């Protein structure tokens, strides 16, 4: 009898890792930068420690040479040393010498200036050498951990140097991971997409939004679509409104130059918060895969009712913090931060009232707010349900004033809580709202991997479900760009008076008036 042909690995079945990545090489552009140091290197090392990296995996750092180092061997040693130091400082687990040694042997370095074509030829030679030595079969990931202004240029050089292989030609696969911010408005995002898609196909492009790598963000989908009882009430018939809050107590942490160009709306709302909104409002996908999930998310983003021209005055509130007290410490105002124009009109707080114009959400306002230097750090999505249609307890001493509320907390104390009314013990019909609280670490006391570990792994496997697609990025920028334009128009006729909230408060008073107009109030998380 002939032995069966093994198309799949029979030993792999029902293993913790259902799929393992192909051998591949990851090239990091911006290998000396902050992101590489704090996130990428520790994430790669933790994957190695868990044995999740494939055989034949290597990392190549591409960065400007340090001229104090005599030889390329010295530069490589310096790169490995830098790698080790960053793992020591930022890894969630300590260095295991034997694992580290094997891992370090598979790190390489290429001297490179993003703008010099020759350097991409050296990279090409190095990749070929690594392929020969480690058997990566031409599979490669380019990670752009660089200032956004270089994205297009690097991509162009990669194409010109013939570094973008594809499976069809039998040379292995190529993928590219691009950090945020992806553009600064609709026009620049489209232009960037065009540049990238001249060289790469969409399925090779992984636009990262690290929020999607967070366990609790993924749990929004599990909560909604793995339970049968929530979906039937997740719509305009039962939901009064939704509040999505991402509050930060920190300021801009020395990134004044960057923030002046960005502002709260671009920095947080365009990417992370619209993603949270999409996950909260989307229809159930047919499968948890890249196309199905992203098709549903993009429909939500495309259904956002535009906020145009002077409508910004009605549907948005902007703020900027002045000096104040946060967690017992006196902190400077935004205009006093390093790298910030003393007359800056950049917003550090934004509140929006958004409508998703589709059958499910028609008429349900979704309030979004984000700010820096608020009293505490919290990210959450709160679904406030309508009041019971009729109260038989009309004579009761105390009416249930609080409607049902479901809160999905993303950080801190990630979990879910549900508020409902209960009878207070006593001879009269008094009632009071109580919370039924679920926190992750109460139920599952396990250490979750860092978002970057999950996302790097997904990219190696070729799963782009948790990355944003071209149409998603453009739909979100379209919505945001209208608001940015509207603010410009408004500024021509009314003066922007900043700062308008003290550090350590919940934002400008106008934001309270904004929601109170609708007979609602902000949650105090």
């Amino acid at each position, binding site marked *: 009898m002939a032995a069966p042909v093994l198309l799949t690995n029979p*030993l*792999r079945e029902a293993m913790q890792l259902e799929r393992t990545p192909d051998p591949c090489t990851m090239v990091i552009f911006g290998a000396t930068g902050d992101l590489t140091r704090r996130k990428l290197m520790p994430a790669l090392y933790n994957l190695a420690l868990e044995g999740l990296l494939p055989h034949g995996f290597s990392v190549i750092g591409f960065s400007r040479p340090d001229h104090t180092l005599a030889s390329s061997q010295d530069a490589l040693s310096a790169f490995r040393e830098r790698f080790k130091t960053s793992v020591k400082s930022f890894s969630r687990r300590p260095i295991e010498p*034997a694992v580290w040694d094997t891992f370090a042997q598979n790190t390489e370095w290429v001297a490179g200036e993003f703008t010099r074509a020759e350097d991409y030829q050296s990279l090409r030679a190095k990749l070929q050498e690594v392929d020969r030595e480690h058997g990566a079969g031409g599979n490669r990931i380019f990670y752009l951990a660089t200032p956004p202004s270089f994205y297009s240029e690097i991509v162009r050089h990669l194409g010109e140097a013939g570094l973008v292989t594809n499976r069809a030609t039998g040379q292995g696969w190529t993928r590219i991971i691009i950090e945020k911010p992806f553009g600064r408005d609709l026009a620049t995002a489209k232009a960037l997409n065009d540049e990238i898609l001249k060289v790469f196909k969409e399925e090779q492009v992984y636009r990262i939004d690290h929020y999607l790598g967070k366990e609790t963000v993924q749990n929004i989908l599990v909560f909604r679509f793995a339970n049968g009882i929530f979906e039937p009430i997740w719509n305009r018939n039962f939901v009064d409104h939704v509040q999505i809050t991402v509050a930060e107590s920190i300021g801009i942490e020395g990134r004044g130059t960057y923030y002046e160009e960005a502002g709260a709306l671009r920095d947080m709302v365009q990417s992370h918060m619209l993603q949270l909104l999409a996950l909260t409002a989307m229809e159930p996908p047919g499968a948890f895969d890249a196309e199905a999930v992203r098709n549903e998310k993009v429909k939500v983003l495309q259904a956002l009712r535009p906020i145009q021209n002077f409508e910004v005055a009605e549907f948005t509130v902007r703020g900027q913090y002045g000096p104040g007290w946060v967690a017992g410490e006196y902190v400077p105002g935004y205009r006093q931060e390093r790298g910030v124009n003393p007359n800056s009109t950049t917003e550090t707080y934004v509140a929006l009232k958004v409508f998703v114009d589709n059958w499910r959400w028609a008429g349900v306002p979704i309030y979004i707010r984000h700010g820096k230097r608020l009293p505490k750090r919290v990210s959450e999505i709160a679904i406030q349900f309508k009041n019971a249609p009729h109260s038989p307890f009309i004579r009761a001493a105390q009416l249930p004033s609080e409607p049902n509320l479901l809160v999905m907390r993303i950080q801190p104390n990630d979990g879910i809580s549900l*508020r409902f009314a209960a009878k207070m013990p006593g001879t009269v019909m008094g009632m*009071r709202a109580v919370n039924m609280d679920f926190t992750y670490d*109460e139920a599952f*006391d396990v250490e979750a991997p860092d978002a970057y570990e999950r996302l790097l792994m997904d990219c190696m496997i070729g799963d782009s479900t948790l990355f944003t697609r071209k149409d998603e990025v453009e739909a979100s920028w379209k919505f945001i760009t209208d608001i940015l334009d509207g603010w410009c128009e408004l500024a021509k006729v009314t003066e922007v008076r900043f700062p308008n909230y003290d550090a350590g408060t919940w934002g400008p008073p106008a934001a309270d008036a904004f929601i109170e107009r609708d007979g609602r109030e902000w949650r105090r998380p």
Partner: protein
Amino acid sequence: MSTPAPHQATWSATSVPLVAIEAELDRLWHTATRYLQAELVAAGRGPDVSQAAAPSSIRASVLNFVAYAGGSSVEPGTDEQLTKLADYLATKHRSRTVTIVAHENAADVALIATIRTNAQDGASGRKFIHEQVLISADGAVGERLPSIVMPLLISDLPTYVWWPGDPPSEDSFWRYITGTCRHFIINSREFSKPLESLSRYASLSRNARKYQTFGDLSWRQLSPWRELVARFFDNQYYRPFLNGVESVTIDYSGGSKWEMADGAANACPALLLAGWLSSRLGWSAVNCEWRDDGFDIACTDGSSGRDITVHFKSRLRPDVSSATIDAIRLKTANSGIQAYFDVVRQDNSSVARATAHVDGRTDSILSVRMTTEDLPALMAMELKFCDQDKIYEAALDAAGNMATLAQKQPTG
């Protein structure tokens, strides 16, 4: 292990009616809850008045955990060990715990119940309450014991039963709780009669009710070994070699405490690893021969009729307390090319190296940290599972067959 928080209350009674236990649990639970709320308020994290919503409870249980230590002799200190284990597990999986220490051979019949509520620190620093009922059962308590245990379990939560030592016989406490038990856990590395017990455990699993699942902490410990072996054959160039396996050698070692009658170390982990390979690759065990340092199991490949030998090489090591795998080596051939796939861990090292030697060339090397988890950590992992693990059950079935063969042919 988490340190117990200051709040701890215990209560005990001899031969008491169930209602008294339940009432006492309730009372202790409330005292503990009030204590926690007072702490929260003191820490400024009390009920948020502006929300007019008070936390109704700090309880979030995900399972019932029943531990049963019985058999002919129970080592002194077992109850403390189980209590400590349960406290630790509760930090990972909030549960109601019922711990039973049964002195089955005691002459007089006696049942003593002790209840403990303990405010413990969770990993996040938040406190939570863990409730344990400890039952000491002397003599032939028969159905009286399950009639107390059953109503104490929180309804609708899956019940996990931890059974230290050899697997239960048909006429034990097991008979009464099998209907309630969702997931049954043993640790085959600690079997005192490894071959006999493994083959019995395999038959328990074969005859299980629907929805009842079986686990073995030793199987959990094999995960990194299985992962590394599987990893070779994710590579499509190596995969065809799986059809040409000629022999498998598994080196294992263990302390003398659990040695088998013939002087070998406990072979259960090695048998499970071999059982996994043979069930995945469609081999069946046909014969066993003993050697000085272990035994060989002859297998036949179901599709090609090829012969495969699995060598079990045992080593007694006084410095290790329970059996571990040291290496697994596959010798194989495909189209006339000879290949060896080895995963080897050096003594006392936490790192294993996987190496493929194909056609005289050393092809790829991977070093991975092998998790050497202690019993509480393994148990915490095991409590994550309750779905049927078909791969394990098939491996256990095959390992059970091998153990049965090995039992029949002890050294002459």
